[in-house]
């Protein structure tokens, strides 16, 4: 049981890091330091952290634009994340991607994607690679309940089911797609029924308890790793903020929101730790450390150099072998000339 508490302590720390990271991001957005779309994950943290705990190094993860939580859960530093939001060169995508396009391949995170449904087949492609090369790895693909209506979702599931690919599809059902409640986007309540038609396992549960998320996702991940095919998991959750910063979320009642906040995943984990005997002083110490970490990442992002024109040109193509040296478009280098690391940026 001691190891269970250690793990929960780690998970609480991560969930809190995500929570504070995004609260600071919202503040920086209001100050104009962050631009574009900013979709917050606040309220859904247990899903990212629970899932990350169920994976091993080398597994692949794909997510939508609501991507800060899973990126941090998988190990991206708060510095790299906040610098990206600030459009800085030290950001995870060198300031070129922004909030919606976090990437961290070293930690298995293959992006932050902006077109609803577009990444579902990509994730199936990563799972195809694992099956093809028998590398023992599993892919997790996240998306919202709204995405289960678009063609890209269905074709991705169709192929993953047919070929029994090692993948777990996690539908984060936060009840709304932008301003539209699920009752107006799909005639079902149980979304696993959609996956049943593609011949895959289904699971469905509430996602405010990080330990539950980990256990249930791990069952599906283990099954995929054993070669027994994909699983579709519907995890019921709720976003405490609007769809993005520009959405005042007038389509739902204050009462509904307050009701859901009683299942705040961070508060649930904290209570669990306290019940298990972790002293208040220790919890406060963890919270203090996270506050310091987040303050430091904002300072880092503030002081980091801006995104560079060189990075913008260099990253349109990775080094090419097809184009001869005297025909290279601006910014493109040849493979034998050294590769991207040796670029001038």
């Amino acid at each position: 049981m001691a190891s269970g508490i250690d793990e929960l302590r780690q998970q609480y720390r991560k969930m809190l890091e995500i929570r504070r990271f995004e609260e600071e991001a919202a503040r920086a957005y209001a100050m104009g330091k962050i631009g574009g779309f900013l979709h917050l994950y606040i309220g859904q943290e247990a899903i990212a952290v629970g899932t990350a705990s169920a994976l091993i190094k080398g597994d692949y993860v794909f997510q939508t634009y609501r991507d800060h939580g899973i990126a941090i859960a998988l190990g991206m530093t708060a510095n790299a994340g906040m610098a990206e939001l600030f459009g800085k060169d030290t950001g995870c995508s060198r300031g070129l991607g922004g909030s919606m396009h976090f990437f961290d391949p070293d930690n298995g995170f293959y992006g932050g994607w902006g077109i609803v449904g577009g990444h579902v087949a990509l994730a199936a492609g990563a799972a195809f690679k694992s099956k093809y090369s028998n590398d023992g790895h599993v892919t997790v693909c996240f998306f919202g309940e709204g995405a289960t209506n678009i063609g890209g979702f269905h074709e991705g599931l169709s192929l993953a089911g047919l070929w029994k690919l090692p993948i777990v599809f996690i539908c984060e059902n936060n009840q709304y797609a932008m301003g539209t409640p699920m009752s107006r986007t799909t005639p079902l309540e149980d979304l696993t029924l959609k996956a049943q038609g593609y011949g895959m396992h289904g699971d469905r549960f509430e996602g405010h308890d990080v330990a539950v998320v980990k256990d249930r996702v791990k069952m599906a991940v283990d099954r995929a790793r054993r070669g027994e095919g994909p699983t579709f998991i519907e995890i019921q959750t709720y976003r405490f903020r609007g769809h993005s910063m520009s959405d005042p979320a007038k389509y739902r009642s204050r009462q509904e929101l307050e009701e859901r906040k009683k299942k705040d995943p961070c508060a649930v984990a904290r209570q669990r730790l306290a019940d298990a005997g972790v002293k208040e002083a220790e919890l406060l110490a963890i919270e203090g450390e996270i506050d310091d970490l987040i303050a430091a990442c904002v300072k880092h992002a503030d002081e980091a150099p801006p995104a560079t024109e060189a990075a913008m040109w260099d990253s349109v193509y990775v080094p090419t072998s097809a184009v001869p040296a005297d025909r290279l478009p601006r910014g493109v280098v040849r493979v034998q000339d050294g590769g991207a690391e040796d670029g001038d940026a």
Partner: protein
Amino acid sequence: MRELRYREAIREAMIEEMERDPSVFLMGEEVGHYQGAYKVSEGLLSRFGEQRVVDTPIAEAGFAGIGIGAAMTGLRPIIEFMTWNFSFVAFDQIISSAAKVAQMSGGRVPCPIVFRGPNGAAKQVASQHSHSVDPFYTNIPGVWIAMPATPRDAKGLLKAAIRENNPVLFLEGETLYNVKGEVPDEGVDEVIPFGKARIAREGDGCTIVAWGRPHYIAMEAAEILAKDHGLQCEIVDPRTLRPLDVESMVQSVKKTNRCVVVHEHWPYGGPGAEIVDQIQKNAFDWLDAPIERVAALDVPMPYASNLETLVLPTVERVVEAVKKVAYL
């Protein structure tokens, strides 16, 4: 005349046409209960009800296809893409179905449909959400393309589009919705024909062709050039890219002997290159300098604000291009 915002002008055109013709309806994501992602359709649901203002799930290929099928069989759908970036998942329905049904049926089946929504870069929404889609769609015979810059053009062209019997792709400016401009008084049924350019500013020093948001950049550049160099630019806004009013542009170039084309799409091909080709072919002997283009830089749109500014056409770049063709 009165002042309206671009957003309000589009809304008015839809309201007037929906009142005129019960077969016109609006369909798309968040168009009803949410009052439109960009509030263009605000109030339409309460006015026309759920039968005619239809909220859809996120399923662009599906509702584009539903619109086309309904158009083929007698309705007049207005299909809203939340932004044109999301039209790519419905691209096949536009290119393979909407643009082809007239020809495949030997001219017997019309497809009176309007696809509309905001186009182009907004502010820091990064690579997947910043496309100027005009070059992809202008290549397709079988559809018409409008890309209005002003509230008046937006209203008049949209009314023409809704009454048209062929598919129209209506590209609104995501950053233009709040722009104010003169629009004819209520009750005046101004329908602006396709394929007629608007001379937005007269001059004899240099022709600037610009549509959509770059129209405003060109106008600003023209003021600077007049003030600093005494050069009067003539600004031609083609308003529709298919059909394209080659005649008006050529006429202007025959007067000014110089031309700069300003557009937000990438430099490779597209209407920008088509316009240059038409002018060099039809006014070759009148040109005193090679035609210049001011385009977005040839990169996916970066998120960082300093880089986004670099990528998009600016007043400074237009001024430089005009000075170049005028040898200033």
